[in-house]
């Protein structure tokens, strides 16, 4: 008999609070009901639990199951009412905002940033001894930012203490104040050289709420993020959340600590990559920010592109990518000044939806650029450790770039998961698949999926339950629901890459379907083809042309199993990077051809 028969999980976002109910049914855990309600952190309610109760009430109404009694959640599940576990995540009130500091920007600075991002925070700035700013400029910056928390690192254990102490002195001189609440000291975590701990205590002990944890870079070759990440989570609960209205009450209801939303998503993705032994990229594109999570070679990374999003930050996508890069995805002519005003109006009225096909195509063009730019930032950040000595021959003794290579390898990528309004709510799933492929440009064989209702945060916190008697079943529930209910499988993208002339054969693919049918298709450079097929295994053998790689090396044939989905099997012969003709007529012709190949948009006057 299962100890956990039912689970209630909520995610308190900055605008919406979402509740899901997971139940043990027919020998497995399934998502059974979900509800949502506006978040109630801000005036006039100023109590997050009101929104939680409203969302849960919707679940109650839909399921017919009594979960609430006198404004509280009934536990445990008595068979007819209540739930066994309740967990929650939160990003309300702007999420967790941190500032990090390290001695060398590309070394301890980057490790500190990785720890903060991994814990689910927004990193407002990275201070470093070598960031080119003078002491007083750093002080002014710290004062302006008012973070929720600061992570200070620097130096290897037993090494020189001067630089990291200098950073602490700068912090002390700035005497920063926390963002929320006037009457408590700012939490500072020190995760640097252990020899400097006393000096740090002396400098910052009085003016801040100082916590000392193990060094984030005990030696150059090793990054030790766990202690800092855990401490950030603890402090998030103790300080930041405790200041937010209603959270103390909410914390008393949950069976596991409340996690920052992106931290929970990250930990779920990390867990899935580990369990399946695969490389994963997950993206969540919101109105203001785009989060990217990846696991390559077993290493987890998260980045937040704080100003790339589809409504609040839409003009910033335009500013950073340039109008031409957006317009290259639009298969018709449009007046440029009219278009920039339209995009500006989306920024100031962020809740509008595309009514016309023209508006939808433009919005999805912008999404491609937002995703592309966020992924560039992610690739630059997700690297192997910098500053690590590696053995070299005399010929490359002066070469400094051997460390710090990006871990992101598109040929290695197995699963690409998208979420966020523009991907999850696209009128046709083909559009989501196209946006993901055009922006991320997967190579070789890659499965595509979307998380349609963004359930990953709740599953992430569920997978992190630490109570001994519950944790196995809780993580089983999280993984089963992830497999069965969370992802909408779009299909698989097969993309051979390598240098070849336009229109020439890139690969010949033989597909063996489960019903015994066989199909052979040829992919030429510039082709995009779709075979509609549900989420079922298809055996493939791929024979690439000379110089072309589909995963086994140039010209090497490959045998594999791939899966269809709501879109199907997509064969992408557009070489990497995908380039579009500068001639408008040719560009529009290619775009229309690719659109038609996957039935992306309704046919009409526009396309």
């Amino acid at each position, binding site marked *: 008999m299962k100890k956990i028969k039912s689970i209630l999980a909520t995610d308190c976002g900055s605008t919406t609070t979402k509740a899901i109910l997971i139940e043990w049914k027919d020998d497995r855990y399934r998502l059974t009901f979900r509800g949502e309600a506006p978040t109630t952190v801000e005036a006039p309610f100023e109590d997050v639990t009101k929104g939680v109760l409203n969302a849960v009430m919707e679940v109650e109404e839909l399921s017919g199951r009594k979960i609430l009694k006198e404004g509280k959640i009934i536990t445990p599940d008595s068979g007819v009412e209540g739930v066994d576990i309740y967990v929650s995540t939160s990003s309300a009130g702007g999420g967790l905002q941190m500032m990090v500091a390290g001695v060398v920007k590309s070394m301890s600075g980057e490790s500190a940033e990785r720890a903060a991002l991994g814990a689910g925070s927004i990193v407002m700035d990275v201070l470093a001894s070598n960031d080119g700013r003078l002491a*007083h400029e750093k002080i002014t910056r710290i004062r302006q930012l008012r973070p929720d928390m600061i992570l200070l690192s620097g130096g290897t254990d037993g090494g020189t203490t001067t630089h990291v102490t200098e950073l602490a002195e700068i912090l002390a001189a700035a005497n920063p104040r926390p963002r929320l609440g006037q009457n408590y000291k700012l939490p500072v975590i020190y995760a640097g050289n252990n020899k400097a701990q006393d000096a740090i205590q002396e400098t910052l002990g009085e003016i801040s709420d100082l916590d000392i944890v193990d060094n984030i870079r005990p030696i150059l070759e090793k990054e030790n993020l766990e202690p800092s990440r855990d401490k950030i989570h603890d402090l998030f609960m103790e300080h930041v959340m405790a200041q937010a209205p209603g959270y103390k009450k909410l914390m008393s209801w949950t069976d596991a600590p409340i996690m920052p939303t992106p931290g929970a998503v990250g930990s779920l993705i990390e867990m899935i990559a580990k369990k399946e032994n695969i490389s994963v990229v997950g993206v969540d594109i919101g109105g203001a920010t785009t989060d990217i999570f990846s696991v390559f070679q077993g290493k987890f990374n998260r980045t937040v592109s704080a100003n790339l999003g589809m409504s609040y930050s839409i003009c910033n996508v335009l500013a950073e990518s340039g109008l031409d890069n957006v317009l290259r995805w639009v298969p018709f002519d449009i007046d440029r000044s009219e278009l*920039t005003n339209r995009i500006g*109006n989306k920024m100031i*009225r962020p809740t509008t939806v595309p009514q016309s096909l023209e508006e939808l195509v433009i919005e999805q063009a912008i999404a491609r650029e937002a995703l592309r730019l966020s992924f560039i930032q992610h690739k630059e950040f997700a690297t192997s450790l910098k500053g690590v000595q590696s053995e070299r021959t005399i010929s490359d003794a002066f070469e400094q770039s051997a460390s710090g290579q990006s871990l992101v390898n598109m040929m290695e990528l197995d699963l690409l998961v998208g979420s966020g309004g523009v991907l999850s709510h696209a009128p046709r799933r083909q559009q989501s698949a196209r946006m993901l492929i055009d922006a991320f440009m997967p190579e070789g064989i890659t499965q595509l999926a979307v998380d349609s209702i963004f359930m990953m945060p709740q599953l992430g916190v569920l997978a992190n339950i630490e109570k001994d008697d519950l944790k196995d079943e809780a993580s089983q529930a999280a993984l089963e629901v992830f497999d069965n209910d969370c992802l909408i499988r779009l299909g698989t993208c097969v993309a051979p890459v390598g240098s070849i002339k336009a229109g020439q054969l890139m690969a010949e693919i033989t597909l063996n379907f489960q019903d015994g049918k066989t199909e052979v298709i040829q992919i030429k450079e510039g082709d995009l083809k779709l075979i509609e097929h549900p989420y079922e295994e298809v055996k493939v053998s791929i024979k690439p042309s000379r110089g072309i790689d589909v995963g086994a090396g140039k010209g090497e044939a490959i045998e594999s199993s791939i899966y269809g989905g709501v879109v199907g099997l997509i064969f992408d012969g557009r070489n990497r990077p995908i380039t579009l003709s500068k001639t408008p007529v040719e560009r529009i012709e290619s775009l229309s051809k690719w659109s038609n190949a996957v039935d992306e948009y309704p046919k009409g006057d526009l396309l």
Partner: protein
Amino acid sequence: MAHSYTPGLKVLKKTLFKKERILPLKGKVLVKKGDKVTPDTIVASTNLPGNVQMLKVNNLLNIEPQDVKNCLKVKEGDVVKKGDLVAETAGIFGMFKSSVESPVDGTIESISDTTGRVVVREAPVPVEIDAYVQGQIEEIISEEGIVLTSNAAFIQGIFGIAGEKRGKIKILVSNPEDEITEEMISADLKGKIVVGGSFISLAAYKKAINLKVAGVVVGGFNYFDLKAVLGYNLGVAITGTEDLATALIVTEGYGSIPMSNATFSLLQTYDGQEASVNGATQIRAGVIRPEIVIPLSEDSSNLSDVNKEPEGIKEGSLVRVIRAPYFGRLGTVSSLPSELHKMESETMVRVANILLKKTKDLKEEEILIPRANLEMVELE
């Protein structure tokens, strides 16, 4: 009757306007509850900690950090003047001494043995907060600031730049469909808040800045012209700190869009009267809209509530379309079907049936519009 919640911007003829004026750090409140204040009355003040100069004494004297204390001529807490001796080496037989002088007037805040640095803190920077609008002090927040109230006409814009300004209102156009042209901006408008109809060109706005006009209130502005004003592309709508002589408050959106009749006629009523404006905008959670506040007499009858939640759209409501392809057009709601409708984009949404009003160039027509793309035009 079916109705739907669609936020609109506030255009209130008379309301009890409330404003918090809070110091960035704790300080002193200079007024009492019940005091009458003008926009220029200083209501609270404080001292921000002064700038910090960090002297790397060990480097400057070429000695080890732990030896710094032996060379110091000052101790923590000492007041120093610019040029005062901070540290000096003994030299050789009293000769060839090296020394460090204070680069500023200030106080010695700290001396570090570990890093050899001496921190000199400059004098505190005084900060004062004024009342911003004419009114009465309603509440004192001890050591932090005040809340004031004012009977006022209150208008919100959709987007603005530059912070708080004040001046007399001057209407420049005769109807809300007219644009403010460069010729209309003249030297006698210095310090005034000028009101136009549908649009102001970049050239006209720049001229206003040069002539130190206090504010421009207008229906529309071109998004791409913002770069020429700000010097950078505006990526997110978080503004208010721009250092510009002239605040810009856009009431309708980007492009050329006639100012709503309600806004225009209310501003017309107070032509020549003092107003306070603020271009600060934040379109995120905790939204801040640019505002125009016109203080009125103290008669507090017929006040409408500034915090009142906007009413939902009902059959017969006057609405504005806020997204292409019908952007900016006004219409009345003829019905609110409850079922989802498929738009041309194939998006499934809840819609409203709208009878779009005739304009100069477009005829009256009945059309389905997603409810999310409508904004209530509040008539009071």
